């Protein structure tokens, strides 16, 4: 992008070139061995959604089991394995890689104005690491299963009988960790070194800031989970006793190691989602983002803060009271940058001309759900209340509001936002909005009831709530909540199947997508849909990514393009 050619017709206005990244070459090998970030992104997207489907199936098993008191469809052991695998798949295979690896891979270089990520080979390698990790993790089912929960706490993971399962899983987590690290390194370097002239740090869309902050977390936190699971494997294999008090070791050390990674990991999950939301809210309300720098720097602030709050998972694990107080106080402070973002998004919406199309509906759902999740996080970060709520369904509800209501909803919103760009097709708006409604209602029915369950004292990870250890009143009360929670999960599942249906349908029957269907200003909307192999057939206009005044609606094209009276942007070379 060294020169801006202003004599040529503006990008976006031209008819899409026949050759795009999908048609550039063909055959299965042209995909499996591709170095094109767009194809790798698409492969990630397909793989991650497949894993999501699998994890969802395990969730359905769990919900069916808990729907009524008494044993339903799973034995106690099977139940433990079902929730463990659900958690492992959703956390390590789906949400951690989700946005950066799939959508990030696809749009990051284009948004930046680059031809590819810095290290295309490393990118492909990290995809195959993901595949290896996924196969290993899922194959534990055939080797006795794992029943420790996704947290792999000792001594469950060191003394149970499911030897092979644990070993496979530790290996899987290790490999997946490196997949994540390599993605992080790749994106950080890309953002540092491949910004073309004119693309300054503050002209980057906020999505890139979020991905950048995520990259820092991926690089700085993930090695610790690597060494943790390696120690776990060695402990398991050779009984060296690092985490075993009988041999002089310390089980709480495992929890420290685990959360030192896993708390930053929750921000690996949510930050890219927040990045997406910044794009969606601004583009679909056709208004300049409010407080660009605040949002950008709050991403970095969150990344830094998130390293020093891990102890809030261990208030009841025998930490000293002083540590508890310190961790509690720092935990509160993390809420500040998160709230900064929420208020900036609200201010962006204020007086915007909001289009309530599918991506925007997801963004609004995110605002509601993420606010609930953050506020309940504060209940958990408060020492006095956490003693009551720890290890109950309240925690389960809290992290589902963050991970699913936050990270995943943002990702689905992002998929809808960039679907026309990725596939070149439009989906049915009507079905899109319906599915979003189903998911929103189903989600709240599923998980809000769990807040109530938890505050009434229902512990998490229990197979049953019936029998001599439970009062009849508790069984009845919990039964009602669990029943409605399960109903909600069915509604959600219906929503997801609907999405799968209309998105697949759009691939074959959907209308052709214009280059810029929503009126986005960032660079990816200036190349054709789907983008050509080298991303831009001509250099794009770099400028303020949220200045929508330079665009106008073209009725005939059903999309936006550069205003005809503007040859080039003021201030541009």
């Amino acid at each position: 992008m060294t020169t801006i050619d202003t004599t040529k017709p503006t990008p976006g206005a031209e008819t899409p070139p026949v050759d795009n990244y999908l048609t550039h070459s063909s055959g299965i090998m042209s995909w499996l061995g591709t170095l094109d970030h767009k194809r790798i992104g698409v492969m990630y997207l397909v793989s991650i959604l497949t894993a999501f489907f699998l994890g969802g199936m395990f969730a359905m098993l769990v919900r069916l089991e808990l729907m009524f008191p008494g044993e339903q469809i799973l034995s106690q052991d099977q139940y433990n394995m079902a929730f463990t695998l659900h958690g492992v798949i959703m956390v390590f295979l789906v949400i951690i890689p989700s946005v950066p690896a799939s959508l990030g891979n696809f749009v990051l270089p284009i948004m930046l104005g680059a031809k590819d990520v810095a290290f295309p080979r490393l990118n492909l390698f990290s995809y195959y690491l993901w595949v290896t990790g996924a196969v290993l993790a899922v194959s534990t089912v055939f080797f006795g299963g794992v029943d420790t929960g996704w947290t792999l706490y000792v001594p469950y993971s060191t003394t149970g009988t499911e030897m092979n399962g644990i070993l496979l899983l530790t290996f899987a987590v290790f490999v997946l960790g490196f997949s994540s690290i390599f993605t992080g390194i790749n994106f950080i370097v890309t953002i540092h070194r491949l910004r073309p002239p004119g693309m300054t740090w503050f002209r980057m869309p906020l999505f890139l800031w979020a991905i950048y902050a995520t990259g820092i977390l991926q690089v700085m936190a993930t090695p610790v989970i690597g060494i943790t699971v390696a120690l776990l494997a060695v402990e398991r294999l050779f009984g060296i006793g690092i985490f075993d008090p009988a041999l002089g070791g310390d089980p709480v050390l495992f929890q420290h190691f685990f959360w030192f990674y896993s708390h930053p990991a929750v921000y690996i999950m949510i930050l890219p989602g927040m990045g997406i939301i910044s794009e969606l809210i601004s583009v679909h309300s056709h208004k300049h983002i409010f407080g660009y720098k605040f949002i950008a720097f709050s991403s970095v602030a969150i990344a830094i803060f998130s390293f020093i709050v891990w102890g809030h998972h261990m208030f009841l694990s025998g930490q000293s009271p002083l540590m508890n107080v310190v961790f509690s106080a720092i935990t509160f402070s993390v809420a500040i940058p998160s709230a900064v973002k929420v208020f900036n998004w609200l201010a962006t919406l204020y007086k915007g001309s909001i289009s309530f199309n599918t991506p925007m509906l997801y963004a609004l759902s995110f605002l509601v759900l993420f606010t609930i999740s953050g506020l309940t996080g504060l209940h958990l970060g408060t020492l006095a209340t956490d003693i009551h709520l720890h290890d109950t369904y309240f925690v389960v509800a809290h992290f589902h509001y963050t991970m699913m209501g936050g990270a995943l909803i943002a990702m689905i919103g992002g998929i809808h936002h960039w679907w026309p760009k990725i596939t070149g097709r439009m989906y049915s708006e009507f079905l899109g909005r319906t599915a979003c409604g189903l998911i929103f209602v189903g989600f709240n029915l599923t998980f809000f009831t769990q807040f109530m369950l938890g505050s009434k004292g229902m512990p998490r990870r229990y197979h049953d709530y019936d029998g001599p250890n439970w009062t009849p009143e508790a069984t009845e009360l919990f039964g009602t909540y669990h029943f409605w929670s399960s109903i909600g999960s069915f509604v959600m599942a219906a929503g997801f199947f609907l999405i799968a249906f209309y998105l697949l349908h759009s691939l074959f029957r959907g209308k052709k997508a214009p280059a810029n269907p929503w009126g986005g200003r960032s660079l990816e909307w200036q190349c054709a849909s789907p983008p050509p192999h080298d991303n831009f057939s001509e250099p794009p206009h770099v400028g303020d990514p949220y200045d929508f005044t330079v665009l106008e609606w073209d009725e005939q094209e059903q999309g936006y393009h550069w205003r005809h009276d503007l040859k080039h942007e003021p201030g541009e070379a």
Partner: protein
Amino acid sequence: MTTTASTTHDHPDFLAHHWDTPKQQFEAGKLGMWLFLATEVLLFGGLFVGYAVWRGNHPELFKFGSQYLDTTMGAINTVVLILSSLTMAWAVTCAQRGNRKGLIIGLLLTLAGAGGFLGIKYVEYSHKFNEGWFPGAYFYDKPSDRSRTWDDNLPVPGAGQLVVPVPDTEARSIEELGLPADILVEISTVVPPGQGPSGLEELALTDTVHTDDHAEHEMHALQREDRPANAHMFFNIYFMMTGLHGLHVLGGVGVMIWLLIGAVKGRFNEKYFTPVDLGGLYWHIVDLIWIFLFPLFYLI
């Protein structure tokens, strides 16, 4: 990413299509490598933290265990590694100047250093294995059998061990709270590490065994009565840290062989030496980690 760029500047073979200039590509590679090294430091960081925690809780184990490490061998290894870093740096300089012969010799010398290091480690390890100083449950006198239950006198109480009766004060304070009698209160029987007894002074290290003594003597010492409980903990962390480091040296050997093949084939010149440069960075970090490990285990 200019479309005209590829026609205007020359685009050498080694320059991937998405870069404008070799300098840009080189700098990106370097930044990527530094980030990777940061992850390496953090990977070891977990173990260093573990070392600090165990040393803090069980100082006597470290004092006791480190007698059985051979300081001479450790020191030789340190020198070998530092020298190999020197030859690596020399190889990198040669690559930057396009001196192919120097590069090949530098790499060969570095490889020799890596091999020497691993050889000495092999001698050290096999000695310990012969004596039965394995980590953890396989330590020669098997402190624990996996099938045992909690009742069988476990954990082994030892200096710094966290099994101490509940202090009276705690029990009284529960009463003072005036809780109704039918409420069950669980009190932790574990006191914070800082309050556990520390056995360092009582530990009789009078007949300190020096590493230049005979092997039989050493083994004898490890079996003696005043051996602190859980003496194997020292060997746990020793094997974990030096083992992980050894794996990294092994990885370095792989990298060096790959660079050597490239050098022999003449892939590198003064315009393109990125892989040698990055391989050198990696080798230096492997060295650096050893420079921390050596004093932590052998000297203090």
